[in-house]
């Protein structure tokens, strides 16, 4: 099976984000593999183990620093990596077109894994655009997967307590949700081996990509300011609770 995994190099969610200029962030913080992409990589690697002669190829679109994230994906078990290099972070429309071009240039996918969203742009859409571009079915928030001949049987969490069971014809795209699997952390040997695996770098401008008439542009980024002024509800438990009831009644007006 030819397995592709689309991954993103994102700032650590624990990092302090400082705004640079009007619409950029200070990138001197720790960057890592997007958390949902961990599940995507893990699933791709597991699938490879089940299907002899398979290959897992990781693809990312981003700055040169994304090589570090691709290294960690190789350490998790991917065989090769491709970085579509650009210094200008693309919107989801362009990112999907870039991923399509890079994948098609490389080979014929049987299945493509992605994470269900990235924790930086929180767009929740690149996999759908990629699917439309490649004319493949796609499912998001996938928490269970089994491959049956030429079909993927998935379970996806639809809403509170409701799961949908879907059947998709291969080739298809699976956007991983948390709960799909438990990613294994690479050993020191895995990390060493990863350094010997191939990472190809392609300039975004060199790919045959038609620019869309549509776009999303970040005009401004502002810190989400915490304005809460905490008040302690003091006293013995009974008293504290009575004060809380007053808050719920008179301030929140939910009782």
């Amino acid at each position, binding site marked *: 099976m030819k397995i592709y995994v689309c991954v993103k190099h994102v700032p650590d969610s624990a990092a302090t984000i400082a705004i640079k200029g009007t619409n950029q962030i200070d990138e001197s913080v720790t960057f890592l593999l997007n958390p949902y992409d961990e599940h995507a990589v893990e699933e791709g690697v597991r699938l490879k183990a089940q299907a002899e002669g398979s290959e897992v190829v990781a693809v990312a679109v981003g700055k040169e620093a994304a090589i570090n994230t691709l290294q960690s994906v190789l350490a998790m078990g991917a065989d090769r990596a491709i970085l579509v290099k650009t210094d200008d972070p693309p919107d989801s429309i362009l990112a999907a077109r870039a991923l399509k071009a890079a994948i098609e240039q490389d080979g014929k996918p049987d299945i493509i894994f992605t994470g*269900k969203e990235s924790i930086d742009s929180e767009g929740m859409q690149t996999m759908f655009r990629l699917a439309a571009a490649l004319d493949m079915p796609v499912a998001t928030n996938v928490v269970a997967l089994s491959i049956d001949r030429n079909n993927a049987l998935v379970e996806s969490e639809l809403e509170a*307590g409701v799961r949908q069971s879907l059947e998709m014809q291969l080739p298809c795209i699976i956007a991983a949700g948390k709960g799909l699997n438990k990613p294994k952390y690479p050993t020191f040997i895995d990390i060493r081996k990863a350094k010997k695996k191939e990472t190809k770098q392609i300039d975004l401008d060199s790919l045959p990509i038609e620019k869309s008439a549509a776009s999303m542009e970040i005009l401004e980024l502002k810190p989400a300011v915490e304005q*809460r002024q905490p008040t302690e509800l003091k006293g013995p438990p009974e008293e504290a609770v009575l004060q809380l009831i007053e808050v719920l009644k008179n301030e929140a007006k939910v009782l």
Partner: protein
Amino acid sequence: MLKEILIMGKIGILIELKDGKIKKSNFGVITLARRQESERYALILNGNAAACKEQLQQYGIEKIIDLTSSEGPVKWNPVKWSRAIIAAMDHFDITSLCGLTSGRGRDILPRVAAYLDAPLVMDCVDLNLKDRTVKKSQFSGKTIATIKVSGNHFIFGIRPNAIDAKPDPCEAAVIPFQADFASEGLEVKQLKQQAHGGIDLTEADIIISGGRGMENPENFEILFECARVIGAAVGASRVAVDAGWVPHTMQVGQTGATVSPKVYIACGISGSVQHFAGMKTSGLIIAVNTDPEASITKNCDYYIVEDLFKIVPILTRHLKLVVDENQLT
């Protein structure tokens, strides 16, 4: 004025139902759509358009498109639903579409955007159609981004409960629209309701969540008991989910649900950045924690430094009294 309306185009609002009833959070989306001063259409695919008319016209919806297939309601299939919505948008000349950033919204809105090659912003907290800008959180909720969209159609997923719903009564008309579509390689085999049931986190006015301080799965019953009294939903932090105490569907946070209830009560939760990312737009945040230095006490509205196992049962008792009192008056 007329020219402005023509430039802004018509706006469609995808209405989401649960068990045949309009989910409350839709009314905030309608309120936001009303602010745009464009011609509005509500779109319903569950076959309940006539039943929904009363409620929708309370919130200023004059036109309701009743989308059906030749076999009746369009059976749930995200591909068929997306194609049907696009056909209706095309037929009625609707250039913008709004919906909830809910589980279904995440399965439909991006498909519509992808098929139309239209810009899409999910989890918006504000929208200005005239300027073609939206506001949404980015970077794990630490920043608010103002995003400008360009294209021929515009798709927006709105954060549930980000906008307060405001009534604006009028008369509505139901317009039938029928279309049939192929499933394009994606079949829905089954919809399964999980045992955990309870109230949808994104629909609840009040959420009571438990974290590390809960200590074990059984203890969550005290939160469920409290929640039952006031119709609240029960959530959890990542710690509780990773420990296997509660299902992932209860998780609030960066890799769980993003919620915006009127009241969020965090019990035994330290308040990591990732947890805040999921609940920071709540109306009031209340913390119960034995640690007076827990991060959450610095970023909440009210906090009680006490053992949650003492506080929650007392809270449940007092809430029962209030509910009983309300029923008598």
